[in-house]
């Protein structure tokens, strides 16, 4: 699944009627099965870009295409995993994962089959009949991942999905996500403001700079997986990406 973003611009109207240029002339080609991280400080437009790709927000200008067909609005080829808590608390874990399939009027047996598959993929089979409030933060995000995967999308959009987790859980979730990515062969667009997370996960890191949000640089990470956070190469790349971001912050302060 090839995703193509061309000359994307997004302007918001602020509360006092002023114009906020959130994204300016973003162009990006994403290869099938690629793991892309959108990296940048908060407020640089990462969420906005992801929401436009996911069809939740309209671009002011520019366009998005999947396999050269134009995308406008939520596309069945994509599924979104939100930063904040998004499970339905009145549904069991099983019924949460089945949600997208229900929306698509998939038959019950087929639904149950898919739910079982993805429950076991994220290691939550024994929690099938539990409710979200009985699960930890990490487990809840795994349910959100399973719910997204259940509709078998080509592209997963993830907005700082592990942002609210503690460091240890976060590292574990990153390894699990890579596992799932390798098993399911999805394209993943992953938003984060953590350099460490981006270097650990990505095939390519797209560094965004704020005001207006533009692409500063696209950095291919060709470290073999599983990546060792303490290795010389990892630290070198991490330092390089950090310096890029510091630079962009510095130029912003100059303004």
């Amino acid at each position, binding site marked *: 699944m090839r995703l193509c973003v061309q000359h994307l611009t997004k302007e918001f109207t602020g509360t006092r009627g002023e114009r906020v240029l959130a994204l300016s002339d973003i162009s990006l080609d994403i290869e099938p099965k690629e793991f892309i991280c959108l990296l940048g400080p908060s407020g640089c437009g990462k969420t906005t870009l992801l929401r436009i790709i996911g069809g939740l927000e309209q671009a002011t200008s520019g366009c998005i295409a999947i396999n050269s067909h134009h995308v406008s609005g*939520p596309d069945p080829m994509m599924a*979104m995993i*939100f930063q*904040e808590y*998004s499970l*339905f608390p*009145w549904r069991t874990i099983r019924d949460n994962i089945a949600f997208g399939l229900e*929306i698509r009027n998939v038959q019950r047996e087929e639904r149950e089959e898919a739910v079982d598959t993805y429950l076991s993929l994220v290691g939550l089979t024994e929690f099938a009949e539990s409710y979200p409030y009985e699960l930890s933060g990490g487990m809840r995000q795994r349910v959100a991942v399973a719910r997204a995967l259940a*509709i078998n999308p080509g592209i997963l959009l993830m907005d700082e999905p592990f942002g609210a987790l503690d460091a240890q859980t976060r590292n574990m979730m990153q390894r699990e996500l890579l596992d799932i990515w390798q098993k399911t062969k999805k394209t993943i667009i992953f938003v984060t403001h953590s350099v460490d997370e981006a270097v650990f996960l990505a095939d390519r890191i797209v560094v965004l700079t704020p005001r207006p949000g533009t692409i500063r640089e696209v950095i291919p990470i060709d470290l073999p997986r599983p990546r060792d956070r303490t290795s010389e190469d990892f630290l070198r790349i991490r330092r390089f990406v950090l310096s890029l971001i510091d630079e962009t912050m510095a130029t912003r302060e100059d303004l």
Partner: protein
Amino acid sequence: MRWYTKLILPIILIFVWEVLAILIGNEFILPRIESVIEVLFRPLANIFGQGSLVENSAVSVFRVLLGFFIGLLAAIPLGIFMGRSDALEEFVDPVIQVLRPIPPIAWLPLALAWFKIGLAGIIFIIFIGAFFPVLINTIDGVKRVSRTWIETACTFGAKEAQILSKVVVPAAMPDIWTGLRVGFGIAWMSVVAAEMLPGTSSGLGFLILFGLNIGQLQVTIAGMIVIGLIGLGIDYLMKRVEMRYFGWKGLEK
């Protein structure tokens, strides 16, 4: 709080009542507890040709349920659409804000003018009583539905009807249910008041007024106790349903 501490005050009150009744010695002002209990313990006995306690209770419960269901059938859909559409809310809200503070009983004269004496007038009063609390709580509940839940449904390609049935309504249900509880309480008060209308000849409201008119206050008090118990019982049932089905609301986060 231990269960028996809850009993202390009622026992004192009953004791004071009995002492006062003996001291006053006038059944037309304050009947003794025994006479009230006598009425209560014979719920099937015909009370001075006006039917039994049970019959009159059944009439009142039937009326309140009828009016209440008509009220919620109107209020819940309207509330959902008003909660979903700012334009509709802005359009309707001023009228609701003006009508809402008018107590259901203040509609009595109009009920008489429009529906004459009988079932329809009483149902109208109950309808008014149930309508506003259900409507207001439904609107609030729908507006408070997390945007992320709705957007989750959108990303899966949900149409508005699916968003309503699979996200908005279940998410707002605890608030709607609160509205139903409040609405039922008011409807129950309204039915008793409405049954005191001239020309009504059945129901608990009628019965307690009838007790006064024939100088049998023990009937009035027995009727009042039944009114209280039925209201309490139904609220208890509704609370049980709330805990059983909407318990997730309190357990979140």
